[in-house]
C-alpha cells in the first residue's frame, strides 16, 4: 500500500558520546536558522540559533555550524545524555517571519 508521512532518519548514539545532526536547507536567501528539539507530546523547544553572517555558534553543550556554500546546517551535542532523546528540527527564515521547518531527525541515546 501507499506509505504516508515522513520516514525520519534516526541517529543512535551511546550515552556520553557526541552527536552530530545534519540538515540541508533549501533557500540560499535564508538568513536566520534555528534548531528545535521536540519531545513526545510537546511543542518544538528552542535550542540554538545562528544568523547567516556567522558560521559557528556555541551554547551549553551544543554547537551549530552553518555552511552557506552548500546550504548545510549541523547541530553538535557534546556528551549526549538520555534526556537528549527527541526529534530535532532545523528551521529557516528567508523573508518575513515565517519559519520553514525541515523534516526532522530522531536522536536515540543508548544507556
Amino acid at each position, binding site marked *: 500500500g501507499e506509505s504516508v508521512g515522513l520516514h525520519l532518519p534516526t541517529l543512535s548514539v551511546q550515552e556520553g558520546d557526541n552527536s552530530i545532526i545534519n540538515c540541508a536547507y533549501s533557500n540560499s536567501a535564508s538568513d536566520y536558522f534555528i534548531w528545535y528539539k521536540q519531545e513526545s*507530546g510537546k511543542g518544538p523547544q528552542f535550542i540554538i540559533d545562528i544568523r547567516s553572517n556567522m558560521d559557528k555558534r556555541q551554547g551549553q553543550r551544543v554547537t551549530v555550524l552553518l555552511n552557506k556554500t552548500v546550504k548545510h546546517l549541523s547541530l553538535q551535542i557534546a556528551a549526549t545524555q538520555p534526556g537528549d532523546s527527541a526529534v530535532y528540527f532545523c528551521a529557516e527564515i528567508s523573508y518575513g517571519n515565517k519559519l520553514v521547518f525541515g523534516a526532522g531527525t530522531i536522536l536515540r541515546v543508548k544507556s
Partner: protein
Amino acid sequence: EPEVTQTPSHQVTQMGQEVILRCVPISNHLYFYWYRQILGQKVEFLVSFYNNEISEKSEIFDDQFSVERPDGSNFTLKIRSTKLEDSAMYFCASSVRGTGNQPQHFGDGTRLSIL
C-alpha cells in the same frame, strides 16, 4: 521561565463544527504565530500576527481560518467549519520582534481530532 500556554491540550470535534483554539503568548512578546503538524509530517506555518493584524499567511490559511487577539493576553485560532483534513497538532508561538533574528517560542500544542 516564561512559556507559551495552549488550551485545550486535546479537542475532539464533529466535522462541520466550529472550533476555537486558545493560546497565551509570552507576556512581553509582540508577534504571534500559528503552525500545524499533521501526524507524521513537517511543522507548517499558518499565520503570523502583529499589532492586531495578520502580517503573513500561508495558502493553508483559507477563509475557514481566522485569528484574533480578543484581549491583552489571549490569541485564538478559529476554524469555522472543520474538515477531516484539519486533524493535526496546532502550535502557537510568539517572539519578541518579528524580524528574522528572534527565536519563536512554541507552546505544547492542541491536538485537534475531527470525526
